[in-house]
């Protein structure tokens, strides 16, 4: 029980806070900035875990996270919304306070669920699984309640952040090969989403995914 553990716990709390902030955020630009902050927190926490457990490859994943989630992906998303000109407010399906309440319920659920696993978990990171799980569920909730395609993608990426946090905190990271693979997947997925945005807008003149309801088979 040293400073590192305390520090990681603090970072976990910040992560959860950012998740809530994203859930309540109405503007896409701020949402992307929040996503970048979340990436930074993730990167720092990975770095701290690497330091405390002296695992070399976690340094690499920390650097990778920093590069990809703090710099490249936010930059890509910024460019995307500039090109698509969609900096306006996010329209939500359910109003924000109700979403927040649902989010709190989810966090309780996640902690409850993670309790038995935390009992089993060894080492410095006990109790963080609940937070990781909660941020995954919160991101899913965000995808669920937003209208615009861009926010859905941010939600998807944030979900991956939660998973990554669970991996580093609970199991001291995955093998580097797996992490590289996931990082590449996320990058490629963002590119593909970007292309899809243009296609969607070209087809429907809007990025509002309610238009896609027409696509169903009658």
């Amino acid at each position, binding site marked *: 029980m040293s400073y590192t553990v305390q520090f990681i716990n603090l970072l976990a709390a910040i992560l959860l806070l950012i998740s809530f902030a994203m859930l309540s955020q109405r503007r896409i630009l701020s949402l992307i900035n929040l996503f970048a902050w979340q990436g930074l927190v993730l990167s720092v926490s990975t770095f701290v875990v690497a330091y405390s457990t002296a695992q070399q490859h976690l340094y690499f994943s920390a650097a990778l996270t920093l590069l990809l989630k703090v710099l490249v992906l936010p930059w890509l998303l910024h460019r995307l919304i500039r090109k698509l000109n969609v900096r306006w407010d996010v329209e939500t*399906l359910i109003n924000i306070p109700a979403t927040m309440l649902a989010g709190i319920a989810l966090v309780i*659920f996640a902690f409850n*669920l993670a309790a038995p696993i935390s009992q089993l978990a060894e080492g410095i990171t006990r109790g963080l699984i609940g937070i990781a799980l909660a941020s995954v*569920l919160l991101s*899913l*909730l965000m*995808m*669920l*309640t937003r209208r615009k395609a861009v926010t*859905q993608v941010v939600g998807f990426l944030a979900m991956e952040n939660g998973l990554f946090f669970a991996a580093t905190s609970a199991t001291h990271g995955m093998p580097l090969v797996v992490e590289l693979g996931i990082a590449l997947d996320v990058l490629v997925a963002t590119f593909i989403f970007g292309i899809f945005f243009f296609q969607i807008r070209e087809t429907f003149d809007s990025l509002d*995914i*309610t238009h*896609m*309801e*027409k*696509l*169903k*088979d009658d």
Partner: protein
Amino acid sequence: MRSWDNLQGGEKATRMDIAGVLPLDMAGTIIVLWLALGVLGLTLRGKPHLIANAIFPAGAVASLALAAIGLWALGAAADVAILPLGLPDLPLHLRLDPLSAFFLVLLGGASFGVSLFGAGYFRSMPGKTLGLLCLEYHLFLAGMALVLLADDAYMFMVAWETMALSSYFLVTTDHRIPDIRKAGYLYLLVAHVGAIAILLGFGVMQGGQGIGAYTFDAMRDAHLSAFWSSVVFLLALFGFGAKAGLLPLHVWLPEAHPAAPSPVSALMSGIMLKTAIYGILRFTFDLLDMQQWWWGVLALALGLLTAVFGVIFAAVQGDMKRLLAYSSIENIGLLLVGIGLTIIFHVYGKDALAALSLTAMLYHSLNHAFFKSLLFTGTGAILHATGERNMGRLGGLIRKMPWAASLMLIGVLAIAGLPPFNGFVSEWLLLQAFLLSPGLPNSYINMLIPVVAAVIALSAALAAYVMVKFYGIVFLGQPREPALEQAHDAGIWERAGMGWLALGCVVLGLAPVFVIRQLDPVTQMLIGHGLGNSAGGWLFLTPVDTERASYSPVYFLLAVLGVMLATALAVRRFYHGRLRRGPAWDCGFPEQTARMQDTAEGFGQPIRRIFEPFFRIEREAPSAFDTHPHYHGRSDDRIWLFLYLPIKRITETLSSWVSVLQHGRIHLYLSYTFATLIVLLAFM
């Protein structure tokens, strides 16, 4: 047959090979070559003449090489290879044993002719379509070869699906026509239902032993109980039956064959259907180590039904490619009868007879590959020359297309089962197997078999009737349309391809003893018994006993030629030489036109009358006072109405229930995911 493997295994080291290269390696090279040619064809889209004049002939040469490799491997021991590809713990296994080798000979031999024909047939296609077609065509060939070589379930299914998908795209080459898209869809549907059954069959044989047990070797060693063996057999019969066009899964055949370009129909009918026969043989006699007598009875009954059904429907068709498609159904039925008979004999320990019927069946598949490919390519030549598939608008083409007509005459005579061509030999052998069958311990089967033989004879006779109709309506008489005057004969590539296939029909008919000797390793492998040298000398084919029956096509041919020569001499000798030309007798009706000839409809009329309960007939005949008389007749398949439409309705109802879930709203779909996740997290 395991013991056979072991026996041959010892000889493996001493067996002949050219400079250390095994037949399997060479077959693999051919497959790679085909794939490379296909890709090359795709890159040469801008130069269609190059694809037609270089790629297709090159593919044809590869086919011929494959046939030679197969012929060589027939006598050699089984050869296995494990590729460094595939799933974890399940690399791809290949195996070239006599059964595969025989079907490779069939594939190579028939596709050589078809590819040569294709070189001419496809030359007028636009480059972009042709490039794609070239890729699919060679992918199709490679897929079929891999099906024959596969030695594990994964490899087999991948090859099987490659074959199905590439042939789907070949069928829908003219995808702008809605009917062709529909035919392709039906084909794809039936093919996939069949593939699922095959996959389930593999699953049963694998028996939950882990992924390593998906190799054929592991399946051969797994001793299934009688019940599970029967389940596997039924699944295989269903799955491969769907591909082969077995009743009642034949519906795609008469739709897909006319839709596809003619060389593709030739490949599908001549070769692809045989891969299904190969599959049934592989499952029944190789992978399963026991057979039940009732499997044989089931196969026999289904085969018989299919054969009679096919030939009766062939008799009433007006579209020449549909006619040939139904004729393929008939031949598949005959092949299945052969398989059924083999199973019955084998179970009752009459291995000499089992070898006879198996030989007849294998022989017939080889023959069918040649004559059906010949006929389909022939329809392609006609289609190119006239643009017409409907026999009611053809006629008198023998004068405009002497090459195509004479080559097709060989095919028609062969398929009708007339000596000295190849069709006669295999049908004769099959009937011999029937006639020699009494003495089985099961009295019901004993009583049944003469009846079956009679039905086989009936369908053979009806097949001859169908071919008289086909040839007579298309080539003989007067042209029914003025446009037919512009018909041109087949080009040089087409002639070469058809010539090769016709040559195959003649050679297979004239050298049965040689062919049967080559088939010996296959029957040895599958049922542990061969016809061996019971065939006697090289001239006479005597399947069982000289006193019972023997056949020498060479003597037969010589006798026929002798009689013809004698007749010609006699006519010359006694003919008085006074010649008078006058108008033909016109039945007292002077105004005769080409439209008064017997039509395809009219020729098929008696059959339609006799077998009326088989058809669903829709007719609309004009009254005597109609100023614009219009006749319309359709004979449909009752199975479609009574089996497929109810299945379709049930499927639609079920899927309409499922489609309640489909709203098109991403949020709803995400909520499904979310709810599933929460439920699983909370309760699991």
